[in-house]
């Protein structure tokens, strides 16, 4: 036991790592299409919806963080069983697993479609997907520390190229395209919030990661920080692509952030087209999202089956994700599927389940406190 601790194999990760894992899950592939969805539904006032959705997203983050801090050292299965009883827990966690499964399959498929379109034209989609999935399985089997460390180390590889490319883009941006920035239609905004809000899907997986936190009591500020960072990133990508394409032009794009890469040309540089770099970033983003969803599913399955080592569940998930990701017949259907999926399972996992758990937990604590008072 001592030996293991010496090498840091205590299966605990820092709060920053927890928050980053969540961030990776949230960003996923939603960011690819979010700017054009915003422009299509709301025009130039789309940023309002992002800000509101980001503000709402802080609510479940706070609830989950507080809940997990309340029951420090216990995993979600134990907590949930304690609060709502074992049978209901099984049902609830199955729904959470299905939610993560849907997200994972969605990421896998979009990843494959994009790579096939821009990079590997004649490689079969199946091969692209399997290569990716096998690599993810390998990473996930390295337990929480490996996953967390990986999610930290890739950050500079995402941030630095994006910053460089945004700088190159600046001369081509027409910021008057952002106008009219304050012409806001409250009804439209209100109606669009539910679909925009699901760009923040992935927060629910904090239910799993928080268990591994070294110090869950102080995790809240990190988690909220990452949600704010994601909101800022969404705003940034919306504004940049709006400035580049204009309102109507942006609405017509399928993946505006990838189209942006077509609009970047390094002035008289050896490498004229930067799709290669964009694709590299894209692989990392898709990989981390898939990794975190797969990790969560593995852990949940392990806890539900009450086994110590849960990594044996990773490989059997592979065919499940693989076949699920291949169900939609075309690119348009992928988005229709995930829409329905998130409405049903996302609402449950992201809003309903944490709310119920947190409310009951608080009530229970109060009840216990009263009881203690009475007995004293």
């Amino acid at each position, binding site marked *: 036991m001592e030996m293991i601790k010496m090498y840091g194999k205590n299966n605990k990760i820092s709060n920053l790592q927890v928050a980053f894992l969540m961030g990776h899950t949230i960003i996923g592939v939603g960011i690819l299409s979010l700017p054009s969805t915003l422009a299509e539904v709301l025009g130039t006032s789309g940023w309002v919806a992002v800000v509101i959705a980001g503000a709402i997203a802080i609510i479940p983050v706070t609830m989950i963080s507080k809940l997990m801090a309340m029951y420090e050292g216990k995993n979600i299965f134990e907590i949930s069983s304690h609060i709502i009883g074992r049978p209901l827990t099984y049902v609830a966690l199955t729904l959470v697993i299905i939610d993560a499964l849907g997200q994972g399959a969605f990421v896998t498929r979009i990843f494959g479609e994009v790579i096939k379109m821009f990079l590997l034209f004649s490689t079969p989609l199946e091969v692209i997907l399997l290569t990716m999935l096998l690599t993810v399985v390998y990473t996930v089997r390295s337990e929480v520390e490996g996953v967390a460390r990986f999610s930290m180390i890739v950050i500079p590889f995402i941030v630095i190229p994006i910053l460089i490319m945004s700088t190159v883009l600046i001369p081509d941006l027409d910021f008057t395209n952002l106008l009219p920035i304050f012409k806001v239609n409250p009804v439209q905004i209100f109606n669009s919030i539910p679909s925009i809000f699901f760009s923040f899907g992935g927060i629910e997986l904090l239910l799993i990661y928080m268990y591994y936190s070294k110090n869950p009591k102080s995790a809240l500020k990190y988690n909220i920080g990452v949600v704010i960072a994601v909101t800022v990133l969404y705003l940034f990508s919306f504004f940049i692509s709006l400035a580049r394409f204009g309102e109507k032009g942006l609405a017509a794009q399928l993946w505006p952030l990838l189209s942006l890469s*077509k*609009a970047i040309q390094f002035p008289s540089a050896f490498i004229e087209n930067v799709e290669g770099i964009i694709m590299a970033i894209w692989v990392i983003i898709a990989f981390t999202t898939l990794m975190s969803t797969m990790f969560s599913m593995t852990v949940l399955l392990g806890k539900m089956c009450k086994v110590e080592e849960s990594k044996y569940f990773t490989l059997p998930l592979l065919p499940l994700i693989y076949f699920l990701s291949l169900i939609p017949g075309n690119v348009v259907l992928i988005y229709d599927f995930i829409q329905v999926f998130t409405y049903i399972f996302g609402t449950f996992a992201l809003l309903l389940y944490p709310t119920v758990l947190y409310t009951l937990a608080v009530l229970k604590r109060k009840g216990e406190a009263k009881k203690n008072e009475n007995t004293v």
Partner: protein
Amino acid sequence: MKTQYRLFIILCLSILLTGCWDLIEINQYFFISAIGIDMYKKEENPIEEDEKEEINKIAQEDRFIITYSTPDLRAVGKNATSDEPRIIMSSISSNFYETTKELATRTNRNFTFTHTKVVIIGEEVAKNQNYMKEIFDNMGRHEQLSRKTSVLIAKGEAKEVMKIEDPFEPVTGYLVNQITEKKQGGARYSDMVLEEILTELYFNGDVLMPRIVPGKGEIKVAGTGIIKDFRLIGWLGEIETIAAMFLLDRVNTALINIKYLDTILPYIITNTKTKTHLAVEEGKIKYIANIDTEGYMQQYILDAEDKLTDQRSITAIEKQVKDTLEKQIKATFNKLQKEFKVDALGLGRHIRKFKPDLWDEVEDNWDDIFENIEFEVNVDARLRRIGMTK
């Protein structure tokens, strides 16, 4: 058991690592530098007999002649094996993709469009609304075409333009690219690239596109094609284009000839800024453009009575520049507004951006309202330098 297991893995590797589906060596590529699109006319290019007999040809409708120009990589480097600096191919087909496939039966290389610099649309094609919509949709959707590609309209046929071999830069695509990017341009063409043109087209289908003119042994990029509702309806000349570019604030440097002292003097603009705004006066929309220019004189008259060093002559020249520019710009605006009735200068977009409430009112019958917009231009021309002599 362990050995067998290892052997199995090694055998698997041989399947997984045998190669890449997408492997194409660089010398197996044709990097298409320019694409030309022309109308296909049956009378001029009748289909060959044996093609007519094709049984399975289900009402194939050939619409375009598409021409590709590519640098011949064999002519590059020390041990060049070819004298021809470029290769031109054309084919009759109904779209880009078919051309690629058809030409594939005639060449030993693969085509790639990632380095395409220019797309030239023939005049006839540009006049057809449906064709233009198809072509621009294709270019926006294309996963290889850079959005920084220049798209020009040829006076006459695109193929004519592409046939011309410039002595300095024979590859059409690079030539046009270098022309539009060089610093000494004179704003005599619209320098919009695909991305900017698409943005305007998405808004309402009106835009100004650069024109390319085939000459004798050389190519000229000058003038502007006026696109209304996705089709070419007319041209702006070179001087008119300068005026239009002033209104779009896309002028870096330009030359204005002014009449002064019975002669023509060049005023060279080094710096200019256009600020436009809209005013609503008594229910009428007024479009006001304020242009500030700075420049210098490159030429005056030897032994003139009014020395250029005299402050009065400088003021007089500045006044003359102001009048000339205002006249030119007004004439161009009138031509676009009254003659062609096209909002190619993006007034609608301007209103949508800066006066969204007004846009809500005028959006539905914008075409009628646009015709009656009043226009005012104020030029503030400054003469800063006078060259090396007094």
